[in-house]
């Protein structure tokens, strides 16, 4: 079946995505990039260039290179006077006051230009997928009127596409976050792209989105932020060196790139270095540029730009007749929303709500369009939805630790087994405590069930082998089986609804685990240190017992002293990690000594070399997750 794609036809850049195996994927173009500049050029030899290649020749051919066609599509010539001033190509009035671009004496409609961009996107998508693409969902800004929507649809037709639907960009963004499943929510979409800023307020209910209000600034975007850095650096350099870098195109180009890089760095770091060796030269020789830009300085340079976002947000809220408290979800779209100051502003304007930003903000619109395309073409319906376990499942082991058998987000059906042993000599039964949750210690997790496997044959600790199997079927029903490998005795428990927790409950448990991760890790380390110490004490005790009076008295006394000290610490649940590890290490040294001195005694007695019966290598052979008998 033919694939349907989702296209974010942007003012500066466009993105195309598709549903693959139930997941949206952004496709790369023939130049290897996920973004395709929305630029079309007509060369003097009559060739048409689209995308990055068109952009590269634009300075040579500015009057025949069309960018920002989206600012003109579906509009009347009389409406676009202010836009015409900003572009180097010729815009004229066509029939019925329509906008036309005049290129080499020939007139082109904006939809014909957009069609070229769409054609390239779809051709590259076909190459990526290895099959022909005909069907597409295309996005438009929420404020587009009927004429603009119709013209965008026509662009699709001109490109030979079957346009399944035209959807709003903020709606696509909401789809990408699965918000169509929400009941009666209000969503604010904050879209700060390369050159445009849009705010939309949507209502969602029964899978239908309704645009309540839109606002924005058609000439505000990430490029303005870059320009502020460029100007600042250039002014500083001019003050020091007396040369204006903006006058030389090559220097300016390097500076623009460095400024954008610094801006991106400042989204995660508090300081960025702009380093441009040999940026220019004068009679005295070459000049270098090296400047530090702190995030604070960057924010100071761009305060007014960030503040220009405020009034459109307030306007949209008041048009929708709501206040910030009525907003349930906030979505960030556009690369410039990665700027920390912008994010802080959005939080401030939306009552401190944490915005959705896990999907790449440059791609979220195309991703949403792809999801819509998948639904409309039936692709999404055909996908068998496989459930995942929302939380990890495990068993309690020695020291009250939770040992995970099935990690959270594992796709079901699934089955995992692990072999455990006993914690005491002659332990005849093991308790299986079935747990669910993300915390390290058993007591912090949820108990799903308990059972007991009895009839284990008396044996030293660590010898019996109990195989514990967790099996979750496709319906989320968990069966836990414990089997004594020696006797074949088996006991099981079935727990239904292990996956049926409310989303809030799951979120709370996961957040809890994150909040306590440091503390939990420490506590787990303590338990492990105590377990190791205890296990070492046990082994050495057995060794002493086995070797009997072949052990020199002083060594025996030393070993016994260490064992007593360890037992005392373990009994008191000591959290003195350093001391536990120290004593365990000391005891291990003593154990090595014991086995070698016993061996030399043995060899002197029987003349046979070798014959050690030392501890079974500390950590390696011993299964450190053992059950305690309760």
């Amino acid at each position, binding site marked *: 079946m033919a694939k349907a794609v989702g296209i974010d036809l942007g003012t500066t850049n466009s993105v195309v995505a598709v549903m693959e*195996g139930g997941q949206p994927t952004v496709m790369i173009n023939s130049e290897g990039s996920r973004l395709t500049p929305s630029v079309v050029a007509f060369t003097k030899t009559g060739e048409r260039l689209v995308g990055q*290649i068109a952009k*590269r*020749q634009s*300075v*040579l051919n500015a009057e025949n290179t069309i960018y920002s066609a989206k600012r003109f599509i579906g509009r009347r010539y009389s409406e676009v006077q202010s836009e015409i001033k900003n572009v180097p190509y010729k815009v004229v009035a066509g029939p019925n006051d329509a906008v036309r671009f005049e290129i080499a004496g020939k007139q082109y409609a904006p939809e014909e230009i957009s069609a070229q961009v769409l054609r390239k996107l779809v051709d590259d998508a076909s190459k990526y997928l290895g099959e022909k693409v005909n069907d597409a969902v295309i996005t438009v800004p929420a404020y587009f009127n009927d004429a603009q929507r119709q013209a965008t649809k026509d662009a699709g037709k001109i490109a030979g596409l079957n346009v399944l639907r035209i959807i709003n960009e903020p709606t696509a963004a909401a789809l990408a976050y699965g918000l169509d499943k929400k009941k009666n929510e209000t969503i604010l979409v904050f879209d700060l792209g390369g050159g445009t800023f849009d705010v939309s307020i949507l209502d969602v209910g029964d899978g239908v989105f309704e645009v309540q209000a839109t606002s924005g600034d058609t000439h505000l975007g990430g490029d303005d932020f870059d320009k502020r850095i460029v100007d600042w650096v250039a002014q500083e350099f001019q003050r020091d060196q007396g040369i204006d870098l903006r006058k030389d195109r*090559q220097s300016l180009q390097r500076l623009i790139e460095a400024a954008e890089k610094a801006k991106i760095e400042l989204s995660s770091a508090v300081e960025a270095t702009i380093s441009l*060796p040999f940026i220019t030269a004068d009679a005295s*020789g070459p000049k270098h540029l090296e400047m530090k830009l702190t995030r604070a300085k960057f924010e100071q340079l761009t305060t007014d730009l960030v503040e220009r976002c405020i009034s459109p947000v307030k306007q949209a809220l008041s048009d929708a007749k709501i206040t910030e408290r009525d907003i349930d979800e906030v979505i960030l779209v556009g690369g410039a929303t990665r700027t920390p100051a912008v994010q802080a502003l959005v939080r401030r304007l939306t009552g401190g709500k944490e915005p959705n930003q896990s999907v790449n903000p440059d791609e979220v619109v195309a991703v949403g369009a792809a999801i819509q395309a998948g639904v409309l073409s039936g692709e999404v319906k055909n996908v068998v939805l496989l459930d995942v376990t929302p939380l990890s499942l495990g068993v309690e082991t020695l020291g009250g630790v939770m040992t995970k058998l099935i990690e959270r987000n594992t796709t079901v059906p699934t089955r995992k087994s692990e072999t455990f042993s006993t914690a005491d000599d002659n332990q005849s039964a093991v308790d299986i405590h079935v747990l669910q949750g993300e915390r390290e210690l058993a007591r912090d997790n949820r108990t799903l069930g308990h059972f007991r496997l009895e009839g284990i044959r008396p044996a030293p600790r660590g010898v019996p082998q109990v195989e514990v199997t967790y099996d979750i079927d496709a319906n989320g029903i968990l069966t836990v089986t414990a089997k004594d490998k020696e006797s074949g005795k088996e006991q099981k428990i079935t727990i239904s609804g292990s996956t049926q927790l409310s989303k809030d409950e799951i979120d709370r448990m996961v957040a809890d685990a994150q909040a306590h991760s440091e503390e939990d890790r420490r506590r787990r380390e303590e338990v492990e240190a105590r377990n190791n110490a205890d296990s070492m004490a046990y082994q050495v005790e057995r060794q002493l017992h086995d070797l009997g009076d072949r052990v020199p008295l002083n060594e025996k006394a030393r070993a016994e002293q260490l064992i007593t000290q360890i037992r005392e610490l373990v009994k008191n649940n000591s959290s003195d990690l350093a001391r536990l590890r120290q004593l365990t290490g000391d005891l291990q040294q003593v154990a090595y000594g014991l086995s070698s001195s016993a061996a030399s005694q043995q060899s002197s007695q029987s003349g046979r070399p070798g014959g050690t019966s030392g501890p079974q290598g500390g950590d390696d052979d011993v299964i450190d997750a053992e059950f305690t008998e309760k």
Partner: protein
Amino acid sequence: METADQEKDRTTGNDSTEIDRLKEELQREHEMYLRALADYDNYRRRVERERSAAARSGKRELILQLLDVLDGFDRALQHIGDAPSSVSEGVQLLYRKLLSVLEAQGVTPMQSLGETFNPELHDAIGTVKSEDAEPGTVAEEMQRGYRWGNDLLRPARVRVAL
């Protein structure tokens, strides 16, 4: 007798429809199973492919950053005339060393000067009036272009003759 036979026929009839139904269901289930297997197989292959592509794209990022350093050498060498010759030799050496590291990775510099401007390979940042160069050809190379294997790694940044 007759009624008993009919009875028996009906039972067998029911049995055979049941068998048909089950056969059909088995067939359907089997198909789904095969489909899942195929999906998995395709997925595995794609992951394999994407892993190598991801490795390549990760490397590409690094190489592009190294080209930035190489550009610095290019520019330094343009000014090297005034420096003592031992310093200039040293810088030349460093430059060639970095270039050979990149060449070992399959990165090759492109010759752009004098070529006809081609936006597939060249990024035009301006024009110049030139006596020597043919109009429409690359008159000045501001930043060298590079290939990586058969792919364009970075276009050359050029001025084109008017």
